[in-house]
């Protein structure tokens, strides 16, 4: 908001917040946002399961670019590392281990698809209306030092958020142990695969 502190590297179109004259950052945000939204839409509508996971990569990568445009660099790289790097790989392994069909599967969508579409469109209209109405005259000031560089994020995280951070590490450890226990139990008794549902009682006995 302060015009006197405008650095020479700031773009000239920033100073008066033109409602219909978007800046370069806004145009880039809009284009990447459209790509992200399109990839997300393809992810939830495609009938090929592996393609859904691959379009999810595009959506999550687009979100990382949006974080970079919002000057949150550390979050952007964490997003690339954790989501694009590991979560999608986990999902692909899950698809392979449950023997998801390669190619089109006609029953990817359930029968209540139209109800789901109605709910989604209704909530989208409501949310967009409320958000646009609430923040019509609000601008983010993106000039100056980055609000989310590694230095700033690390300082705030280890100065103000140490206890939640440590609690979160314990939670992550618990989740790891839980995931190992959940998948080890099923693998220990018989050969894995769809034939494993024949000897259910002994397996259930081990689960108690």
């Amino acid at each position, binding site marked *: 908001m302060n015009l006197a502190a405008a650095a020479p590297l700031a773009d000239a179109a920033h100073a008066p917040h033109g*409602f219909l004259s978007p800046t370069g950052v806004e145009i880039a*945000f809009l284009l990447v946002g459209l790509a992200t939204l399109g990839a997300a839409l393809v992810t939830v509508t495609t009938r090929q399961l592996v393609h859904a996971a691959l379009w999810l990569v595009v959506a999550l990568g687009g979100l990382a670019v*949006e974080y970079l445009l919002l000057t*949150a660099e550390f979050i952007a790289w964490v997003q690339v590392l954790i989501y694009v790097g590991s979560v999608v790989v986990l999902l692909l392994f899950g698809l392979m281990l449950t023997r998801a069909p390669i190619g089109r599967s006609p029953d990817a969508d359930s029968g209540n698809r139209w109800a*789901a579409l109605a709910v989604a469109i209704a909530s989208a209209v409501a949310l967009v209306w409320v958000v646009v109405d609430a923040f019509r005259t609000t601008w983010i000031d993106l000039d100056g030092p980055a*609000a989310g560089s590694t230095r700033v994020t690390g300082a705030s995280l280890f100065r103000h958020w140490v206890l939640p951070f440590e609690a979160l590490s314990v939670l992550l450890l618990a989740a790891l142990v839980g995931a190992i226990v959940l998948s080890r139990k099923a693998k220990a008794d018989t050969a894995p695969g769809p034939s494993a549902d024949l000897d259910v009682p002994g397996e259930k006995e081990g689960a108690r």
Partner: protein
Amino acid sequence: MHLAYPAVLSALLFCTGLYGVLARRNAILVLMSVEIMLNAVNLNLVAFDVWLSRTAQETLHSGQALTLFTITIAAAEIGIGLAIVLAVYRNRGTSDIDKLRDTAEGPDPEGPGTPAAEKAEASA
């Protein structure tokens, strides 16, 4: 940057994920849709953190810290969720959530044709 851009984008992404959660049958596709919803919330958190850190001189950076926490919890969630889906697949031979109706109330659409699964459930 106008604050409405990231807010509207995250609202639309959230509703996309909502549609996916409600309309998909495969459990792993439902997990993907949940990831989309969580990412929409993350975008909102980051945008409002950047806005508040300039406008209100907020130095706590709670939005970015919460985004990191959300990412971590989402990673834990996807690990546990996939482990559960794999366990269900090994027990039942399917990951189709429309067929996992053992605890459903009301009339069973498949009729009494699944006594084996119910017996297995009762012995557990």
